[in-house]
């Protein structure tokens, strides 16, 4: 990681001069607030070099005017009093850069959404004055923040996966022009999920790997030990059968799938049972099928899984059975027909072809040649004869703890890779540059793993093509105050702080995402955060409350 501006908190310099722009927002602000009053107030502030009233700061003409005003040496930072920090920050940061100023020395004072649009003119103006004072104080206290940029962007995408989702992600990443490495903990990729239709046998995998001309590699029986670095330059240590190797990659996709397992119900029915997968294989090879086929889509407790894939397999295999031999009677016993979205069409088609659906609130009573179900709709016992019982393909969650620890992403209580929060893109993880897909993730049930894999690969590729400069508002330890109490180490959601060789905490800038949770909790007050130092918050509070200290 290259640090573009040296970070030191000791070098907080007094501002050279502040340029203030007051935006009327095409009447939205100026109709409520007399901008001249704000102009006079701003001029009273000692560090203010110039104040201008603008028609609409975000239109190109006014941007040019602002650039002109910023081209003087008297000014090293500026404040825009206008609309929200949320809606225009990027524009003003770009303006700062194109004017040769540090983009972290920009402050936005929200006199539109927080004043003009909500309050009556008199109150709005009073509040705008107050907010202007708060912002001016903050603007004075700003300091350049460090910027981080990878030295070189590595365009390789590293995929950790055990099944077909990993292969789909690799296909997509390869199609987008990335070298890709799949690290698979098992000795082969599992055939799971939708990809099954295409066929993920050895021949297919090998053909794809061969077609990719060495641009996609598969490393089986390999485990990710650690992942250091940041987007564009990750360093991964991988434990392979040939020993530890270090791999450099720009982005990482975690594509873990649930693994196939034996259905515990198989023991009840002995040789009269098979899984949907086996049935499909038999049907494809035109094996002879018995007359009464019962599909038992539930677990021991009679609960049907919220698994659209199982339902899809059941309804389609039932239909397939009927097409091959119209005399076959196929019955699906389930609590819930989980035929989401388009799958409903398949379910209907299967029913129309004669597949019987029997609902059951509980596990059926098993007799020698028939199952007895209490139908909740009819309220009666129904006996269903069987020659063959077809069971769901059961998939279990692999143990992801070690992987999660190595990558520093959290798991859910259930042990799935956690979706960070609703606001991030569905395929992103809490760690920038690490993307999630696969059935072992906490995804929406209606989403197929293929789509997930493609979305993750698209986002990873897009990230590697965009500007990877990051950082800025990060936390930093003032080591002379640190008492190495480990509070920050324990609190940080990203594993950024650690105890360094000198026995003091230090924060890895490339892992820190600037939440400030360590800053607020440090008992020695030894951590400060760029742009949100304690003194900055204090002075804002003080201005907000009438200037008292």
């Amino acid at each position: 990681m290259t640090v573009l501006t040296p970070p030191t908190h000791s070098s907080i310099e007094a501002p050279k001069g502040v340029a203030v722009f007051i935006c009327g927002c095409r009447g939205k602000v100026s109709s409520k607030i007399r901008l001249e009053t704000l102009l006079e107030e701003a001029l009273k502030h000692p560090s203010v070099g110039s104040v201008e009233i603008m028609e609409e700061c975000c239109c190109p003409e006014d941007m040019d005017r602002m650039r002109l005003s910023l081209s003087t040496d008297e000014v090293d930072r500026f404040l825009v009093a206008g609309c929200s920090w949320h809606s225009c920050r990027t524009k003003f940061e770009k303006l700062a850069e194109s004017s040769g100023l540090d983009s972290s020395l920009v402050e936005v004072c929200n006199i539109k959404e927080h004043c003009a649009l909500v309050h009556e003119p008199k109150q709005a103006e009073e509040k705008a004055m107050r907010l202007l004072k708060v912002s001016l104080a903050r603007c004075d206290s700003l300091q350049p923040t460090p910027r981080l940029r990878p030295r070189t962007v590595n365009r390789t995408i590293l995929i950790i996966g055990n099944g077909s989702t990993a292969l789909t992600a690799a296909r997509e990443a390869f199609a987008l022009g990335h070298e890709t490495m799949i690290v698979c903990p098992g000795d082969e990729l599992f055939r799971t999920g939708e990809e099954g239709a295409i066929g993920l046998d050895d021949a297919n995998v090998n053909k794809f790997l061969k077609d990719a001309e060495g641009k996609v590699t598969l490393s089986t029986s390999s485990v990710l030990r650690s992942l250091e670095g940041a987007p564009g330059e990750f360093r991964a240590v991988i434990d392979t059968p040939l020993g530890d190797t270090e791999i450099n990659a720009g982005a990482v996709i975690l594509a873990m799938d649930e693994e196939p397992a034996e259905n515990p119900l198989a023991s009840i029915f002995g040789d009269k049972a098979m899984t949907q997968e086996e049935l499909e294989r038999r049907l494809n090879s035109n094996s002879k099928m018995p007359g009464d086929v019962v599909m038992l889509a539930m677990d021991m407790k009679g609960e049907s899984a919220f698994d659209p894939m199982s339902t899809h397999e059941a309804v389609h295999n039932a239909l397939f059975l009927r097409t091959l031999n119209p005399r076959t009677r196929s019955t699906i016993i389930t609590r819930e027909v989980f035929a989401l979205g388009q799958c409903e069409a398949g379910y209907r088609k299967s029913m129309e072809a004669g597949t019987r659906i029997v609902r059951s609130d509980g596990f059926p009573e098993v007799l020698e040649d028939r199952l007895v179900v209490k139908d909740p709709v009819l309220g009666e016992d129904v006996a269903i004869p069987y020659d063959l019982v077809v069971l769901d393909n059961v998939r279990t969650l692999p143990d992801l703890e070690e992987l999660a620890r190595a990558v520093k992403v959290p798991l859910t209580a259930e042990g799935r890779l956690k979706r960070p929060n609703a606001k991030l893109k569905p395929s992103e993880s809490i760690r920038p540059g690490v993307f999630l897909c696969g059935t072992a993730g906490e995804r929406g049930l209606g989403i197929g793993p293929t789509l997930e894999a493609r979305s993750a690969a698209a986002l990873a590729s897009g990230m590697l093509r965009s500007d990877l400069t990051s950082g800025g508002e990060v936390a930093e330890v003032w080591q002379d105050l640190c008492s190495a109490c480990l509070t920050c180490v324990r609190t940080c959601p990203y594993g950024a702080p650690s105890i360094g060789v000198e026995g003091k905490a230090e924060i890895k800038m490339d892992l820190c995402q600037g939440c400030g949770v360590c800053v607020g909790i440090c008992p020695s007050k030894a951590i400060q955060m760029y742009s949100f130092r304690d003194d900055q918050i204090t002075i804002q509070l003080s201005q907000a409350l009438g200037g008292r200290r």
Partner: protein
Amino acid sequence: MKLVALTCSFCGYAATDLAGLQGMKYSSDVTIIRLPCTGRLDVKHVLQAVRMGADGVLVVGCLEGNCNYQYGNLEARKRVEQAKGIMKEIGLEPERVEMVNLASNQPWRFVQAVEDMYVKVERMGPSPLNKVRR
């Protein structure tokens, strides 16, 4: 009346923006100060605000489980509780400090929180610290 709202940069701040864009009305006595995440909040800041004469302090964060930094808002709630405890010990009404969790598209919840605080402070009267120093 002097009210301060410390909001996080994500849902909290976005909700205050949306309240503006949708023209909702709330007391103009509240000043909004942006933090990166409510997890940045220090107990000290709440007490500082009270010492400087704030009649009420609102801490506005994302919904629990939707924090942009995973659990900054849960940490903030702990710190708000701690600040309340200290206020009680020194004889101030702990209700002057509240934590609100909301989503970016729930501006009404912000407006409601400000109103609630306004009503509460009106009932309790100005902060004693405000009266003594004035």
